[in-house]
């Protein structure tokens, strides 16, 4: 069976442990064999590029090199920012021999070499493309019937554009939610940035961006927001209280990883999916688990 090089990324070891747990549970249930890359390093999210571009690409390339060394050809990341970094560094390595040479010179100090031959995808793409919606639907034991879910794509999962895909109004997340039996909510800001990368450096702007998103989802009567990225998730969930203080709102909308929703629909016990660790109660989702 095909093995995937799994790059969890730093957030999945701290703030987003529930994303890691639910990813591994769901992957196992669906027969997706994830092999964690040994001794991977932080890929820098959005924080290296302001400092040194070559360093940024090299740090990403080290993880790609480790995966190549394992003899694997598929690289999968559950974090949208990690995914975007891995995708583009991998693509540039193939296209730009000069960049590849500089990177490989640095990697040599770590006894590594990178070719840029990986197929890099986000976890949600692997589930949809390789397992397939029909196959997923067949395995659903606890359909999320009537649950109104706002699919939040955010930015780095979709952008920059890779090919001719629809970046303005994508539908794949909605299709996945429908396969789980849920009701995808259509709301205008599903691809609008949540300000995750600004939460430390420009808190005011970030809270404003979170506020707009929450308001939008609530206006469309969503029961829960589903995310594909730990940065989005933390931003929308952990800072909900601060948004309420700042704007005098009373938001209490749960924010869940798409893998947690998949897990519940697949009949996996909520504790195994890290449900119960959220600051805003996941009650509406839990109701489907039993």
């Amino acid at each position, binding site marked *: 069976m095909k093995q995937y090089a799994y790059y969890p990324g730093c957030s999945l070891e701290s703030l987003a442990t529930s994303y890691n747990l639910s990813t591994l549970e769901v992957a196992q249930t669906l027969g997706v064999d994830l092999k964690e890359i040994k001794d991977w390093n932080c890929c820098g999210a959005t924080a290296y590029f*302001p*400092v040194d571009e070559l360093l940024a690409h090299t740090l990403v390339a080290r993880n790609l090199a480790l995966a190549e060394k394992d003899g694997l050809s598929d690289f999968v990341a559950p974090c949208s920012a990690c995914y975007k970094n891995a995708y583009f560094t991998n693509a540039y390595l193939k296209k730009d021999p000069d960049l590849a040479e500089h990177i490989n010179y640095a990697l040599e100090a*770590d006894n590594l070499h990178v070719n840029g031959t990986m197929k890099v995808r986000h976890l949600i793409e692997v589930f949809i493309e390789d397992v397939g919606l029909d196959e997923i639907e067949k395995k659903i034991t606890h359909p999320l019937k009537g649950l109104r879910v706002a699919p939040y794509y955010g930015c780095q999962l979709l952008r920059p*554009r890779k090919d001719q895909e629809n970046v303005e109004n994508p539908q794949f997340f909605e299709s996945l939610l429908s396969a789980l039996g849920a009701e995808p909510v259509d709301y205008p800001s599903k691809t609008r940035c949540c300000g995750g990368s600004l939460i430390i450096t420009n808190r005011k702007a970030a809270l404003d961006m979170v506020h707009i998103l929450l308001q939008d989802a609530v206006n469309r009567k969503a029961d829960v927001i589903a995310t594909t990225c730990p940065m989005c998730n933390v931003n929308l969930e952990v800072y909900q209280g601060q948004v309420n203080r700042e704007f005098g709102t009373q938001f209490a909308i749960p924010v869940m990883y798409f893998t947690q929703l998949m897990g519940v629909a697949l009949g996996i016990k909520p504790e195994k999916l890290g449900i119960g660790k959220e600051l805003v109660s996941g009650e509406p989702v839990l109701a489907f688990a039993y």
Partner: protein
Amino acid sequence: MSNELSFSNEIANVMYATHGNPIKDCLQCGTCSGTCPAVEFMDHTPRAIIGLINAGYRDEVLASNTFWSCASCYHCTVRCPAGIDIADMMYALKRYSMWKGQHQEGLIGPVFAQSFVKMIVDSGRSFEPLLAPTYIFKHGPRGLVQEAQTATGLMLKGRLPLLPKKIKGLKKFQNMVRRIIPIGEPS
């Protein structure tokens, strides 16, 4: 005249994989500004900053908070009719202003970027709580209380580990980094 061209070209040169100068193709249509979710928090809109760059207003550009307010969301990039990777240009402006040591006073962005890199070079991993002191220092007691409330909530839910992880092959990792930027000799 030659000065005007050179600032725009200089920024273009700091962008990745650009041939010639894409910034000069700007039509000043304003699509980027209309798209940008952070525009309210910028002293110049993305369209205006590009106008200033192309007109050679170097000091005004570097003194601006525009690129430090950019969330790197690439929404402008996918919509620009002239095909300019504006998000990448914002990154380039951050790099350029840090190299020149010239940026607006009191911004957290440059401090944060430096501490983030230091953290990764030290451990190979990033760890959210280590970043908090930089933030608290800048935001004073009110920020501290809010941050502590958030952190305590997370700690109680078992979402914040007490110690950061380090990668195993740290020495070799640092040797690799050393081939790109100076980080001092191995200890």
